[in-house]
């Protein structure tokens, strides 16, 4: 029983490593799209900032739900460690170095930005905010 689940875990993590290694494409494409949208919204936009992304990730907003004032409420303070939802479900680390398969599925990324920004900020995130945040996590 433990052997089986250990083997499954191993297989799963190997699969994830391979999935992450080959495809740098989708993540960069999505960043490029956010950059285009950010530029359109603000002609003075001059590129994403990991520093701003970090602030977005850690700041207490208080615009959303009381039990999730910041992204770190679920994702944890350490980007390379896992997190946990209010209902107790474990979340894999958000740092790309720790979970290489992260942000390779544009529809998934968009779906969660929409949900989680509403949850934390009480509104959707702008293209610039999304790009800043992804830049921060890609460098983590």
């Amino acid at each position, binding site marked *: *029983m*433990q052997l089986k*689940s*250990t083997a499954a875990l191993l297989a799963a993590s190997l699969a994830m490593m391979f999935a992450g290694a080959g495809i740098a494409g989708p993540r960069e494409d999505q960043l490029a799209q956010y950059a285009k949208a950010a530029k359109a919204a603000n002609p003075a936009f001059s590129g994403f900032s990991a520093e701003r992304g970090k602030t977005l990730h850690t700041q207490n907003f208080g615009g959303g*739900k009381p039990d999730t004032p910041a992204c770190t409420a679920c994702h944890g303070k350490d980007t390379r460690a896992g997190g*946990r*939802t*209010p*209902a*107790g*479900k*474990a*979340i894999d680390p958000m740092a790309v170095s720790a979970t290489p398969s992260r942000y390779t599925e544009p529809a998934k990324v968009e*779906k969660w930005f*929409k*949900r989680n920004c*509403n*949850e934390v900020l009480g509104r959707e995130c702008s293209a610039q905010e999304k790009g800043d945040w992804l830049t921060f996590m890609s460098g983590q």
Partner: protein
Amino acid sequence: MNIPYRPLALGLLVLGFSALVFGRAQAGGRHYFAPVNNPVVKEECGSCHLAFAPSMLPAGSWQRMMANLKDHFGDDASVDPKTAAIITDYLVANAADKGGLRYSDKLLRGVSAANAPLRITELPKWTREHRKVPDWEWKHKDVRTKANCTACHADAALGYYDE
């Protein structure tokens, strides 16, 4: 049932707490509710909480829930229509009232089909099974909500609720 093996399946987080309730919750038969085995349902319904077993609510409940994912217990769990159809079909086909499911029949005792309850944790049978769980346990930092089945039932993701 060896405590030392539990962290393997579980992750260390939960160990401390489940060791606490382990002794008492161990009593009883091997209550089994087949876990979700559809990858789409696992992904869409298993990120925020355990992907609850379809055999824990009647078909009418799943239909009612799937009709309003935009406001899902205060969360936005919405998915595109094609994905929603796949999920609904799966949940309905494996629902608690499809017949022949021993533990589901028990769990649904006292529930009328017309009610379509949205919470497993409000089914009369569930409430009765958990009436002895003291307040401090529900409030424990590793539990926090009744919906966090895996905090106490280490093998919930495998379908077992006997410990």
